[in-house]
């Protein structure tokens, strides 16, 4: 993993097809916005604004003046160190630094005891101390809507994953079109779009023709995904449970209605969205350092 300062070229690529409004004038150090204010300032495409307005503060103070922004999918210790080294105190990430959701106030005693044990564990302890010592402000970006009803994935993540694979939008926000390709070609396209290696798994005949692709980044909600998957030939997903849609798709061939699966892993499936967000923030806040920390596939195979 390396720190990737955004070039103008990557900004253009990341924001392809999005009309960006004129950026705000650069702010002097004394006029630095607070983290909380920054999330709602600057003109951004609606899909980006929606994600920022739904971001949850999980570490630090939202009142802290922002010195620079680090956007990442996973706020790993490597990413946090890069943020500090490049003068960024605001971290915007799709995942959380302590590998979980914060303990709810009404957690049962067993969960509380388990959490206490983990907070005393050296890796948890050192990471929490690093965040506190450097007064980092970390917001978690939502990947799906919190509104009631079937979980809807936020278009920032769905659309950018689909675009990175060369798919085109349909009226159904989950199902995308492709010029007729084989499943094997789609797998290769997905692989190069997100940089997947050992983490990629697939189901289906590589020669199977594909026209409709259901794109579900992050985790895969069973009921909602099933509804949309019926309209598609293939599911491109991040993380899946192996007793839900995995056997459903594996059964599809024996059922005479073959469907394909391309499982990318959660992190890589979220990354086109976080990358695009970083590019748009760079444009919206030209006076600020905005860095993006790309992740390589966490998995390898032999």
């Amino acid at each position, binding site marked *: 993993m390396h720190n990737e300062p955004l070039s103008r070229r990557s900004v253009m690529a990341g924001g392809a097809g999005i009309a960006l409004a004129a950026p705000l004038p650069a702010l002097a150090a004394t006029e630095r916005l607070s983290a909380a204010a920054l999330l709602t300032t600057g003109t951004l495409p609606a899909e980006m604004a929606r994600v920022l307005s739904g971001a949850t503060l999980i570490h630090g103070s939202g009142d802290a003046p922002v010195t620079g922004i680090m956007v990442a999918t*996973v706020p*790993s210790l*490597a990413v946090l160190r890069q943020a500090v080294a490049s003068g960024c105190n605001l971290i915007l990430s799709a995942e959380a630094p302590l590998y979980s959701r914060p303990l709810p106030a009404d957690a049962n005693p067993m969960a509380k005891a388990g959490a206490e044990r983990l907070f005393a564990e050296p890796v948890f302890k050192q990471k929490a101390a690093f965040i506190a010592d450097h007064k980092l402000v970390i917001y978690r970006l939502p990947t799906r809507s919190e509104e009631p009803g079937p979980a809807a994935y936020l278009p920032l993540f769905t659309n950018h994953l689909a675009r990175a694979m060369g798919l085109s939008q349909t009226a159904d926000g989950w199902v995308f079109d492709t010029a007729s390709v084989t499943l094997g070609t789609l797998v290769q396209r997905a692989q190069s779009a997100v940089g997947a290696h050992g983490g990629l798994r697939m189901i289906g005949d590589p020669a199977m023709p594909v026209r409709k692709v259901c794109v579900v980044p992050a985790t895969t909600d069973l009921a909602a995904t099933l509804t949309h998957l019926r309209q598609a030939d293939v599911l491109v997903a991040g993380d899946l449970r192996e*007793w839900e849609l995995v056997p459903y798709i*594996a059964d599809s061939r024996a059922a005479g209605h073959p469907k394909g699966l391309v499982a990318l892993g959660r992190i890589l499936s979220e990354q086109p969205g976080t990358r695009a967000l970083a590019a748009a923030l760079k444009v919206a806040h030209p006076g600020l350092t905005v860095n993006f920390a790309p992740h390589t596939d966490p998995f390898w*195979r032999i």
Partner: protein
Amino acid sequence: MTPQQVVDAIYARAAAEGVGPAPRPSYRDTFKIGNPDTAITGIATTGMSTFDMLKRAVAEKRNFIITHEDTWYSDNDSVEALSADPIYLAKKAFIDEHGLVIWRNHDLAHRMHPDPLFAGQMDLLGWKADKPASPAASRWPVVTLPEPMTLEALARYVTQRTGTHSHRITGMRAMMVHKVAIGVGYAFPDFTLDDDVDVIVGGESAEGADSHLPTYDATAFAQDSTLLGRPRGIILLGHMGTEDIGMKLLAEWIAGFIKDVSIRYIPATEPFSPPGPQQG
């Protein structure tokens, strides 16, 4: 003999072997489809009653399926959202046509001593568990390797033993592994149960930080731990790469007291296609 009689005999035998009553009725361990009073022509046990597995069972004239995992794509096997689904309808039609009866044995199997799912996986891996460090850790087999080896060598050994093709590995290839914790299916051990565990060899685990503590993203944790100078790694063998084989032990156990009908293990096998050459 009927499926209901076999299930009754299974519960009676488990109780006789000291398996206490369930804390609550299991929604998992129920008949999923078919008539429990059908005459059995043969029994098949399996990690998962997939469509392909059912076809292989029918080819062997086995009409009673004992599955560890679900049949209808969710833990509670609800078919409510599937009533017009063509894949569900085709699988159901096949089951009806061949008069199959499916019963899930998940919770009971995991309450047995030893748990056949863990025991089957340990046999497959060729390892014996260390003496548990604490009563809390006794659920999770921990193995001190006879000789330390690199994660890459361990991955080679493990995948040769299990024959999996859809495994995924995280961690430094060259890290030295002394101690391994074993998981099966979605039962995934926690690194902090034993600070000396270098690598988890498990089935599947949720990626990302959506779990509530004390469950956490083991992959992200292992990467940070490695950066801090304490290398840790994970080998994910998949759900069926870890819980299929235990149902072979269950078939052998049932054959010990059900003598009237033939019983055999039919693996579900991994759902994923073999990887392409590019997946390095």
